[in-house]
């Protein structure tokens, strides 16, 4: 095995870590309303936004008002996306003449994009018009990300302010997230992606002549263009020859950039960032995978800077990175080891200078094992959900890593904003557990944690497992749920567990063999996505409001310092123990059984 996977991952972590402080400090300045490099350009635009919408930027909101502002923006956003999909056939910018999306699919996609999940029940290049992609999906990529960022900033203000009945202005936090953070970074990234070959065009799909025409079978059609069925109701196949290839186009680069930076993950095309037009080169791949973690990682520093002690932020970053590196190691090792049952058939899957080897089913040659495993780990550590390889075809342990990372609650870096607010809730629980051990009232960053905060934190930790486990149980018990399974046996169970883990933690990636574009899954997953976004964000805002109203207590001899290795270990322990206790029984029925079947005892 070569050193390349190790070195390229190290390079990735080095670049990520180096960007934490500059970007984190910049964002702290933005949210505190200080002048930045971009203020001369964006300041006037920001003021125009407030004037048009009638926002008083100096008014600070009570947490309930803050929550309603966020909810209304998301409800209207979801309605807009739903409407665009249903009406796209009569709207402009639809050169491929896409028809209206079905009601259940449109509902699922609308919720999916408003909640920053970006689960894709549809195939982009065969479903969505350019207008829907641009005005609906891309806008929600920005807005849903900005909402997560705003909630995080509100929570940080809860820690940093004293005796205050308000936690900031939602519209200001949201606008600044978009104008000062997401938009400039997206412009840079989109520009870089275009140079690599990511398409950006409003032309209809191009057609090219195949060098060698291909003979294949296709479903026979009757005179009305409907598929012909035989006596058993199966479609009749007939021989066909195809001499041309469609070359799909569209405004992809602009959308791919924000889908990564906003940890959205909804692809322009069906196979997402595995598509050569979304992710054509190793460099475009590196930029995108970096963009996924860039903002979530930098927020650790922003948090430290805003609470007045950057060590607090670095401690959280250290805990996240520790878990990330460990699981990245498992995923890379498992995928590089490959499929022993194929090797036994005379397939050469050993790594060499001439091939990456390993488990190449569902992976692209330009990415190989190292860049695919890095992406799978990154996209599920963050709540991104874009993919550059098909997780459904991973080895059992390789596929268990992304699944478990989602089940941990998307707090290993996590989504923009949502990752860190989730992690801070785990920190609250960790401090609470430590407080119980020594018999002291727990405090974090000078704020006493009392019954209300712990109750809210418990809700945040319990809601996603509820939807993941209960949803999985419901799906495997119902005919409609089992009908979607593509792979037989334990892997089929994994497909369902993965889908619910993804929706219930707002990730959006999939074991894509599962046929989830059905009324059953569109509804079940839609409800899971909606609840596990707002039933978390609202309690977090409640914690923010409650903390902001408290006074700050000076640290005493009974205070647990929260910037030390001891605290880092405590935090990691809390995340892993909660994640393991909740999900190991379910994982045992899926990936663990499958692993034992792949390596049968002799």
């Amino acid at each position: 095995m070569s050193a390349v996977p190790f070195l390229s991952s190290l390079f990735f972590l080095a670049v990520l870590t180096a960007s934490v402080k500059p970007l984190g400090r910049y964002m702290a300045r933005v949210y505190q309303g200080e002048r930045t490099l971009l203020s001369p350009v964006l300041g006037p635009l920001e003021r125009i936004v407030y004037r048009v919408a009638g926002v008083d930027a100096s008014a600070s909101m009570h947490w309930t008002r803050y929550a309603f502002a966020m909810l209304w923006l998301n409800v209207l956003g979801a309605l807009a996306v739903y409407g665009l999909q249903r009406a796209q056939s009569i709207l402009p910018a639809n050169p491929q003449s896409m028809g209206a999306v079905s009601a259940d699919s449109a509902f699922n996609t609308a919720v999916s994009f408003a909640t920053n999940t970006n689960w894709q029940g549809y195939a982009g290049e065969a479903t969505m018009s350019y207008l829907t992609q641009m005005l609906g999906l891309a806008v929600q990529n920005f807005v849903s990300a900005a909402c997560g960022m705003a909630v995080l900033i509100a929570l940080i203000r809860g820690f940093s302010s004293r005796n205050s009945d308000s936690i900031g202005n939602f519209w200001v936090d949201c606008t600044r997230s978009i104008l000062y953070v997401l938009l400039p970074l997206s412009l840079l990234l989109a520009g870089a992606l275009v140079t690599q070959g990511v398409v950006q065009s409003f032309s209809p799909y191009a057609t090219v002549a195949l060098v060698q025409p291909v003979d294949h079978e296709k479903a026979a059609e009757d005179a009305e263009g409907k598929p012909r069925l035989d006596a058993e109701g199966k479609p009749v196949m007939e021989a066909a020859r195809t001499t041309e290839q469609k070359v799909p186009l569209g405004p992809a680069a602009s959308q791919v950039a924000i889908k990564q930076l906003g940890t959205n993950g909804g692809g322009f095309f069906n196979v997402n960032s595995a598509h050569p037009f979304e992710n054509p080169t190793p460099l475009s791949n590196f930029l995108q995978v970096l963009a996924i973690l860039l903002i979530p990682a930098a927020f650790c520093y922003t948090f430290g800077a805003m609470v007045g002690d950057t060590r607090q932020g670095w401690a959280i970053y250290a805990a996240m990175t520790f878990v990330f590196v460990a699981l990245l190691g498992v995923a890379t090792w498992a995928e590089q080891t490959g499929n022993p049952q194929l090797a036994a058939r005379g397939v050469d899957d050993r790594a060499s200078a001439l091939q990456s080897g390993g488990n190449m089913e569902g992976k692209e040659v330009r990415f190989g094992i190292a860049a695919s495993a890095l992406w799978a780990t990154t996209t599920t550590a963050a709540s991104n959900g874009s993919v550059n390889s098909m997780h459904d075809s991973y080895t059992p342990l390789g596929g268990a890593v992304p699944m478990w990372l989602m089940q941990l609650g998307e707090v290993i870096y996590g989504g923009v904003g949502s990752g860190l607010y989730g992690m801070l809730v785990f920190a609250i629980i960790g401090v609470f557990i430590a407080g119980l051990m020594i018999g002291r009232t727990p405090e974090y960053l000078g704020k006493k944690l009392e019954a209300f905060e712990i109750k809210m934190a418990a809700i945040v930790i319990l809601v996603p497992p509820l939807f993941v486990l209960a949803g999985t149980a419901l799906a495997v018990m119902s005919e409609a749920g089992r009908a979607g399974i593509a792979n037989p046996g334990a892997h089929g169970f994994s497909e369902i567990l993965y889908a619910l883990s993804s929706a219930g933690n707002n990730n959006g990636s999939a074991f894509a063999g599962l046929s989830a574009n059905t009324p059953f899954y569109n509804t079940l997953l839609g409800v899971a996505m909606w609840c596990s976004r707002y039933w978390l964000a609202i309690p977090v805002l409640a914690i923010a409001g409650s903390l902001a109203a408290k006074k700050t207590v000076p640290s005493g001899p009974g205070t647990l310092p929260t910037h030390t290795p001891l605290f880092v270990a405590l935090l990691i322990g809390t995340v892993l123990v909660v994640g393991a206790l909740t999900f190991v029984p379910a994982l045992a029925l899926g990936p663990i059984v499958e692993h034992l079947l792949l390596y049968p005892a002799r």
Partner: protein
Amino acid sequence: MFKELKTAFLMLLVFTLITGVAYPLLVTVFAQVAFNDAANGSLIMRDGKAVGSRLLGQPFSDAGYFWSRPSATGPMPYNGAASSGSNQGPLSPALHEAVEGRLAALREASSPADAATAVPVDLVTASSSGLDPHISPAAARYQIERVATTRKRPAEQIAALVAQHTEPRWLGLLGEPRVNVLELNLALDGLSAK
């Protein structure tokens, strides 16, 4: 509770104008002006006709061409309008059946001397997109003998062509070495034309 509804409506409108109209248009103008070829699908032109995209693979089955990776798109392989992976798990009977078929086809087409060689894994497994334009250098090397024999060319000449079309890792670090199958096959046809 409804106090923020009107603001939310206006805000969504403004955000839509900025991020849904101005932003993609700005990127499109930049892309179309500065990187016209890349922004429009990186098409390969021959005699004024587009014969493919450098970034999208095409299916090949003639013994005289290098074969691309298996593709799981339907109804035909390498369907540019419907990207898809196979989504078959490692124990899937369908996967094992498909791999057997691909191994048999490759071995049948190659010379008896090569039939016993283990086949590079990327040549018998479906790609993630179904449109993978590349094969590994190992997969190209595996096919050199067959292509050379079919085209009645010295194997060294074909090997040199493969080497010419092999891209290394970026900075020796990122991604994997790879061979663009469509470009390689077009170059093969170019040899015969001379």
